[in-house]
């Protein structure tokens, strides 16, 4: 069985979700739980670090769609970083780049949040 692992850490006012392995229909609920936890704690600024993600299915992408509006309504956002090319291709294929910000490095995404926080 393909493994998936998701963990959460705080970097200043921003929450970083690290995803690892295979994010598909089977493992999507785990990611969903993390987002629900963030909503409970009123954490709306989220960076998802895809450094160790091997594969994502459309059900996995759906989780991001399901939460992004709530985050944005609360002056937050979901930003993506450290994606491998194959994972990015799936996002690109489904048109995500129009709707989400993608960064090479987690730091750039964090900086972007900090800038927005100041203004």
């Amino acid at each position: 069985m393909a493994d998936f692992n998701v963990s959460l850490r705080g970097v200043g006012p921003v929450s970083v979700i690290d995803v690892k392995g295979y994010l598909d229909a089977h493992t999507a609920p785990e990611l969903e739980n993390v987002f629900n936890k963030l909503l409970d704690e009123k954490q709306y600024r989220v960076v998802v670090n895809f450094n160790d993600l091997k594969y994502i299915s459309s059900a996995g992408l759906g989780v991001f769609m399901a939460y992004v509006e709530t985050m944005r309504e609360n002056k937050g956002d979901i930003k993506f970083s450290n994606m491998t090319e194959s994972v990015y291709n799936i996002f690109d294929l489904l048109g995500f780049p129009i709707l989400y910000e993608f960064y090479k490095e987690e730091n750039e995404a964090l900086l972007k949040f900090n800038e927005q926080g100041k203004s």
Partner: protein
Amino acid sequence: MQTTDNNAALRNFSALVDFSNLVNSSLDLNFALGNILLTCFGKFHTTKGLIALFNDNNILEVASCKGITTPVINSFPKISKDDFENNEALDRFVKENNFPVCREIKSSEGLKGVLILGSRLTKKLYDKEDIDFLSTILNVGATAIENSLIVEKLKKVNRSLDSKVNQLSSLFDLGKEFSGILQTETICKLLVYSLIGQMLVSKYAVVTCTNNSFNILENRFDEKLLTAALQNCSANIFVKNLTREDLKTDFKQFYDLGIDLVIPMQIKDETKGLILLGKRKNELVYSKSDIEYVSSVGSLAIISIENARLFKETLEKQRLEKDLETARNIQKNLLPKKIVQPSNLEIAAYNASAKMVGGDYYDIVKLDDEKVLIAVADVSGKGVPAALLMANLQAFLKSICKQKLPLVEATNLMNDLVAENTTLGSFITFFWGIFDNAKKEFTYVNAGHNPPLHVYNNSINKLKKGGMILGVLPTTIPYVSDTVLLNSGDCIVLFTDGITEAMNAKGEEFTDECLESLVINSYNCSSEELLSKIKQSVEEFTIGAEQSDDITCLVLKVK
């Protein structure tokens, strides 16, 4: 003079080689077009130029331009490839904007488009040599354009293939996942996630239809409006995919909610659910391939949802059956386990419920050393309600027996108790009698029950005396009893209507007459033998038909 010409030719030639190398070095269309324009600018000293190419729909469209203002570009005529030969719009455009050069670009594959150039800064006109040079550039350029176009097309095809592969792997992924889940909520969640991920929508709803009414499982539209919209529809009008245009004309309420796509989820051509999707975030309309995807995911999901529902139903049924099994065991224990046998009477009894639990009841109670009470009853209705009332009756009977009342008073009391404790419409046909072992007497009261048959001297006396059935009204007119004297060899057959009204496969009843003639012909055997003859006869009669009512039969034989 000769040398100057040669030099000029050499310059042109080397410029051409340069251009050819450059323009073929990349397969990027914009790069090729830009280079053609810039080469022309450099050679002819002009600052304005555009290249228009036929697009996928064979309409001429500006693909690259330099030095030309947007209004001019916007005024470029839309010309289809078929009308190109006789079209004056292009000539008009060229004249109006004072473009001195307009040349067709032709590759081996045919006409690709046109190149238009502005006047030269040196004010010199384009001479024959210039036009020849331009033709050469365009010949080389056309091949480069052709190649780039093919590459672009390939890229597009590749991307749409990728997208198909992605959809397929997503379907595969879901199919695998769905088959393992039996909770409707989880199935729905996964369905929704893969839809919104694949289609980039944030407004959606999933509803199921059972018996033509809708049940909303997931919804991100206005709940009240959606409920109202669904209420006006029945499931069977959703048989095909409905796009925004269909909705606008035929389903205004859905259109107004911002629903762009309605996909029915069907099992064997029956609509079991709907997927409703809103506008896509990337502003694209749903393509045929998108609709196919949603439809496929829907088909997978609805089968799983249906399975989950059936699974739940089966569980519920199993639980109910277990409850009934318990009830049946309790009820069986209410019937006498061991039959009392007085010295002068032989008693045989049989009882079978049509359902798990039944409403027939019989009892044999030893009152004292000489007296035995024998009772038989049929509670109205079947199943659980009848079984409950039967249990009540058994409790009344047991406690009344303890009070040693005369049979008539006991029956009056019994009726009052049953009438007080039943709801309207429930009643009991009831017969009981006391056999006096010493006197060989049988004193009985019949409260509306099928009269037992007293068989003696090859004739039958029906034990009818008594009164009303139990439970309809409290006792106002007392019951009456009767006593029959019995002789050795006499037989009394007590039964419920399950015997006489037993039906065969043709829907015919066993009848009283049939029972009577059977009894009168065979009452000379033992009580057990007569009972099994009755049983056998009824069983043979009803072969192939389902037992529709409870059956109870008691045979008393005087020794």
